[in-house]
């Protein structure tokens, strides 16, 4: 497709449940980024991939959060033992080159609600 695709669009999880969020970047985009956006806040950086290599995971809030991009295209963000504070919109972005100096293209996000 022409844009960054994320699925599912909405996810309701019971507290303690594991979830997996998928991101399909724009074809050929080298860099992929995950952000967490709490209600009424700006996105906050979680992690960054260059091809299949995870170069920066400094923003992951705990060891319950795990991201992968095994073949350098599709990425999955996994959250184990979800808690209510994990409720947020999870945004994925990709860019053509290394880093993001050409500007990201964001997906529409996955809204996660933990009940």
């Amino acid at each position, binding site marked *: 497709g022409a844009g960054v695709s994320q699925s599912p669009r909405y996810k309701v999880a019971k507290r303690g449940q594991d979830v997996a969020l998928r991101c399909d970047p724009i074809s050929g985009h080298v860099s992929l980024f995950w952000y967490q956006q709490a209600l009424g806040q*700006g996105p906050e950086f979680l992690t960054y991939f260059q091809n299949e290599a995870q170069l920066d995971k400094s923003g992951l809030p705990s060891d319950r959060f795990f991201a992968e991009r095994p073949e350098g295209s599709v990425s999955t963000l996994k959250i184990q033992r979800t808690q209510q504070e994990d409720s947020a919109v999870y945004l994925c972005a990709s860019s053509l080159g290394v880093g993001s100096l050409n500007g990201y293209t964001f997906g529409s996000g996955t809204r996660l609600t933990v009940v």
Partner: protein
Amino acid sequence: GESVGLHLPTLSVQEGDNSIINCAYSNSASDYFIWYKQESGKGPQFIIDIRSNMDKRQGQRVTVLLNKTVKHLSLQIAATQPGDSAVYFCAETDFTGNQFYFGTGTSLTVIP
């Protein structure tokens, strides 16, 4: 850590008027700034960017001004239209571009 904040959380303007959205940043090492527009249920959409070696950049109906002395960024929208209603974020990054730091956002409402 870096801090990027916006002065006004909400802004209402009449259709046809000009809008100005302000942003303060704290990291003097930031090299690149972007304004994003985010509509409800969508991801942030790129509007305009500016590098730290510039103080002004113009696009179609939008202008970004950068004042490095006081670490201030502004977005000017000319002849604001109802379709401009959204939340606007400024974001900054260093020369690596590996991660952006976003402000809280300003909600712009255009009154027809």
